[in-house]
């Protein structure tokens, strides 16, 4: 599924101070590619992911994912669309502490009303791939940071979404674990034919990416690898 952002403007109103994040920004993410978004803190990397996923809506402009006009959808429609087509990986893992590993992973499928038979095998298979099958009945607080992020990756893939969005997925991990997680996300996304958009500070991610973009002056600018590693 291609993602098309057309003339997007977004302003946040924080206690009388208006902060313009995007102004007339247009961009296209081609299906199946791994794109990395880099930029300083607060430039709007996370906001971009929120707009693509329908968590937030633009003030102006159109967001088109495949044939679907996400920016024209109601909140419920966006929620259902996100549930079916988008997987999200966060910096702080964002697992539900009162659910076991397996329950966390299958939560989205349950929310979608799928039958257990349809998703349980898939969930277990992914857990085996990330080496957490034996920990499936444990609670997140008993896992290490890297393990928790692996659970989050499985959760983002279990409902077979078209797009994976990752917001600083290695920001809360040590260098070694971070690298392993990057590899895992990239591998799994490629193997499963997913479009992967990652917002990160980590320059290491660029090595795995097909394209690199940066948020500059409230718009997305493509960067060549040379521009990043001169």
């Amino acid at each position: 599924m291609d993602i098309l952002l057309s003339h997007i403007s977004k302003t946040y109103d924080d206690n009388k101070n208006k902060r313009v994040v995007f102004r007339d920004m247009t961009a296209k993410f081609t299906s199946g590619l791994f794109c990395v978004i880099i930029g300083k803190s607060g430039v709007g990397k996370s906001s971009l992911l929120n707009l693509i996923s329908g968590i937030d809506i633009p003030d102006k402009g159109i967001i088109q994912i495949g044939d679907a006009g996400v920016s024209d959808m109601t909140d419920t429609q966006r929620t259902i669309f996100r549930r079916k087509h988008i997987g999200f990986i966060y910096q702080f893992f964002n697992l539900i502490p009162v659910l076991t590993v397996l329950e966390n992973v299958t939560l989205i499928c349950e929310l979608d009303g799928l039958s257990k038979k349809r998703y349980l095998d898939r969930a277990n298979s992914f857990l085996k791939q990330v080496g957490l099958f034996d920990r499936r009945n444990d609670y997140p607080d008993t896992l290490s940071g890297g393990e928790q992020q692996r659970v989050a990756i499985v959760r983002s893939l279990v409902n077979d979404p078209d797009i994976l969005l990752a917001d600083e997925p290695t920001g809360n991990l040590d260098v070694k674990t971070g690298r392993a997680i990057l590899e895992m996300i990239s591998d799994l996304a490629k193997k499963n034919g997913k479009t992967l958009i990652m917002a990160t500070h980590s320059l290491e991610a660029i090595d795995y990416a097909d394209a690199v973009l940066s948020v500059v002056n409230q718009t997305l600018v493509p960067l060549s690898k040379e521009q990043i590693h001169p």
Partner: protein
Amino acid sequence: MNQHLLIKICFRQSRSHPLRTLLLIIGIAMGVAGVIAIDIAKTSVSKSFDLSTAAITSETTHQVVGSNFNIPQSVFTDLRTRLGIHRSAPVISTHITVMELKNATLTLMGIDPFSEMGLRNLTVRSRSGTTGKDLSGLLTHASGVLLSQAMASQYGLNQNDTITLSFGDRQVQTVISGFLDSRDGATNAIFQGLILADISLAQEILGMGDDITRIDLILTDAAMAEQIVKRLPDGVILVETRRQNRIVRELSRSFETSLTAFSMLALFMGIFLIYNTVSFSITQRRKLNGTLRALGATRKTLFWTVLAEVMIYALVGSASGILLGILLGKGAVHAVCSTVSDMYFVLTVSQTHITVPTLLKGFFAGIFSCFAASVFPAITAARTLPITLMQRSASESALKKYLPLFTLTGMVIIGAAVFMLNFFTRQPGVDFIGVFMIFFGSALLAPMVILLFVRGLLALFKKSWGSMTKMALRNITRSLSRTSVLIASLMVATSVYIGIDIMTSSFRCSVIDWVDSHIGGDIHVSSSDTLKRGLSPRLVADIQALPEVAGISVYNIHRIFSRTSGEVHIFSYITDLSTKKWSWTAADETQLTALLDQGWIFVSEIFAQRNRIEAKMGASVIIDTQTGPVSFRIAGIFRDFFMGGGRVIVNRKLMKQYWGYDDITSLQVFLHTPKTVAPVIERINAFVPESANVKVVSGATIKKGILDVFDKTFLITSALQILTAIVALTGILNSVMALLLERTRELGILRACGAETGQVGRLLLLECGFSGFISGVMALPLGGCLAWVLIDIVNRRSFGWTYDMVTSPKIFLGAVTLSSAAAIVAGIFPAVRAGRTDIGSALHME
């Protein structure tokens, strides 16, 4: 660190959650209002009683009364002329209604204006506007009466206007010949319940012939009292006014004691819910407090900051509670005074009396409960390491560490309470302390019970429940330090509801059973003439001859005076088809009639309680008769719900011998089939001459009338139930809102994962529903226990009533449903808000 700055931070935090702050204040205000309203009702009854009796007895020290409430006027003449007691006055006193005053009940006092000069301070307003002791208006008009100026103004009545006095079936036209008025407000309040007439007019109105009700005396020495006693004929008694007033006053004390019990329950529940609200409010600031500590705020500063903030809300809440309490109290006074008038004695003056101690009691209840609620969290906030404060999980670990200790302490406290209630109930106040201990112990048991309950449910439904349901349940145990307080509060509120529900429904069942068996009869026939109460034997024979009639209970019932219980109703049966429920009998029930024939008597439970009769062989009681005090052996004590001084059953021979009555005043007619009630009533009415003033009503009407009176008695408890529900709802709503704040991030994750607004809302409602369900289940034994205390201890001791505790699955099912529904209703608003969680900001919270 500057304390003002800290307080400012706290208030800004509160300002960002205005609804929760408002709920906190409402919670405190409701608790305080409940206490004040009931206290106002109680003190107003007391004051109204004092005013009503002051209107009748004034400053008299003694009264001469007859054993059947009538004495010949010649007794007064004898005391005045032979003993020379000039500070004495004959009085006729009875309650009448006045049509022009919207049928208000007043005390009609027939007085002798000349004798009154040296006795009572009855001031009358003259035409010129001055007030003085001029009672000549009673003598100048043949049917002149004096009425309170305030009352007359209220109803737009003027001098020489005609007013209609009703006494039983009698209606008499009288003329207002003057107004009672005083410069003193208290005296005017007394006058409001009074209507004065000359004694001869009163005798004429009431058809009393030459009889009077009593003689009021002001005696200064005991020797004179002794001389009077020696001169009094048989059946006429000298009593001390103050002592007699005290006895009558004691009658309603029981009712007021039960009100105290309920006000204590309201207070306790209020304290618990205020604790819940305040502790929630403080614990949710753990992180802020931790940050402040990390930045250099000392323990002491933090302690006082936490306390100061809560105390300011306590002040606002308590002050609002006072205003609300006064409003509720005014409504309660009417209900309580009406119950006292129906069941104990007629309150001719009904005033709302608000005292400073009442307001202070409520105010300090609010302040104290807020202090109690905030002191522990404030100490915790001050004593805990900053890093621990910043971690929410730390409070949960602390609770889990102390869980066995809490559980053990709870069990010990409940055990001690059960022991106390079983062995020390005779000591006043022990029952209330016992109830408090049971509640407190149960609250300490709550965390462990919740933990086991949730684990049990999860184990049982592990496979069949989805992740969202499991999440709702696990969330309860995850935030045990918060949810256990919430669940315990709801448990207390629900158990109060169950306790009151069981008590009122058990009582109603017993009253219905009593009306059906003891009063019984499909049709009741009695005289509606308060003076000529006898029914003609011919009427009895005619009714008995009707083919529809299966049988008749034939008896007479009269009021007699008792030094120990005030007014007592005495019965004697010719035939008795009713069945009584005995609480104690001296012999086998089959032999009781024989004992009655031998001169033994039956007494009601209330009479036994008032006369401190011990239910054992050889029990006896002294009753004043026309021939003087007589000791009677007691054959049985029967269950009876008529209030006042109680009831006594004697045989016909004793009734005639000691009280001079051998008439028939009432009949209970039993039909072959109840379907024929209406036609039989018609036929009985046809037997009655129009002049005879006979009242023929169906048993169903009597039953309805009695149940209406008893239902009115429980009006105040029903109001308390509603108050309980409101306070509980406010508490839960506040708690759920606080929990919601803690869960924002989690809800954001759910929404980001694709949970729809409805699904998130449902999760929260599920959590509320489970919390309500657990509270309801935990409240079942506690509510049952409270009902037992109310029925077996409070009601028996206070009213002298014994009745069986009737429980039904419906009550318990209803309570669980109610507590679950209350929690769900309280969760609706937070659930809607949860559904609207801003995912972006929620996810970036840490």
